């Protein structure tokens, strides 16, 4: 049962706004008094996922379920999908165009960061249909 259920639309056409959702989640977790490590891990992982949706998928939807003993982040897009998830998980592998690299992204660290910062992560993707990423963070007791 979720203590707090948050829904966000992540617009795909405005790079300036990318990160608004994860910034809001960070603020809410702070207000709810979660421990700093859980707040940072959740917001960074969600930020990386949000950026990915903007860069690669023309935006998507993010939902966050905040419970006392876990935080569940679900990112869903209807973008081109990931051809090889295992390859995409490799540090340094990126399909980002040069325009994105000039903005400071596209280093190929997004998915590895998301996996490192969260306690559980699952990706499912279908080419030409979209990608779903679910991550779970367990705050320290």
């Amino acid at each position, binding site marked *: 049962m979720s203590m707090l259920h948050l829904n966000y639309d992540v617009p795909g056409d405005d790079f300036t706004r990318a*990160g608004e959702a994860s910034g809001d989640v960070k603020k809410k977790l702070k207000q709810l008094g979660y421990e700093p490590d859980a707040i940072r891990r959740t917001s*960074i992982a969600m930020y990386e996922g949000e950026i990915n949706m903007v860069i690669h998928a023309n935006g998507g939807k993010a939902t966050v379920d905040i419970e006392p003993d876990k935080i569940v982040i679900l990112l869903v897009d209807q973008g081109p999908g990931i051809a090889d998830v295992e390859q995409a998980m490799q540090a340094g592998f990126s399909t980002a165009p040069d325009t994105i690299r000039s903005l400071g992204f596209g*280093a190929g660290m997004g998915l590895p960061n998301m996996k490192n910062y969260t306690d559980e992560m699952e990706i499912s993707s279908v080419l030409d249909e979209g990608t779903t990423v679910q991550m779970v963070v367990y705050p320290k007791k």
Partner: protein
Amino acid sequence: MKVKDIVGILKAEVLFEGNMEEEVVTACGSDMMSDVLAFVKDQSVLLTGLMNPQVIRTAEMMDMHCVIFVRGKQSDDTVISLAKEKNITILATPYRMFTACGLLYDAGLRGGCDID
């Protein structure tokens, strides 16, 4: 050192004044935001040559207190207004990245990595 001390060390212009009394101990210099997100632990200061709003969002995610734009970059209104919203101090230094990092290292800031 405090954020306000950096202004003198780097001959910096203050583009937005957050909490200048904030104590800072570690710093990171990078133009790749995903690297900052991956490798930075408890860094309070970010030096970068990238002038775009995602730098501020990255700094916010990492709980950084101060962003320093190197190489005399022209300021961008979107960046400054986002920094105001997040209360992150923004400085601009004419020094290039290597020198700016070196000056701060010389003054006592460290990288916060285990190999230090």
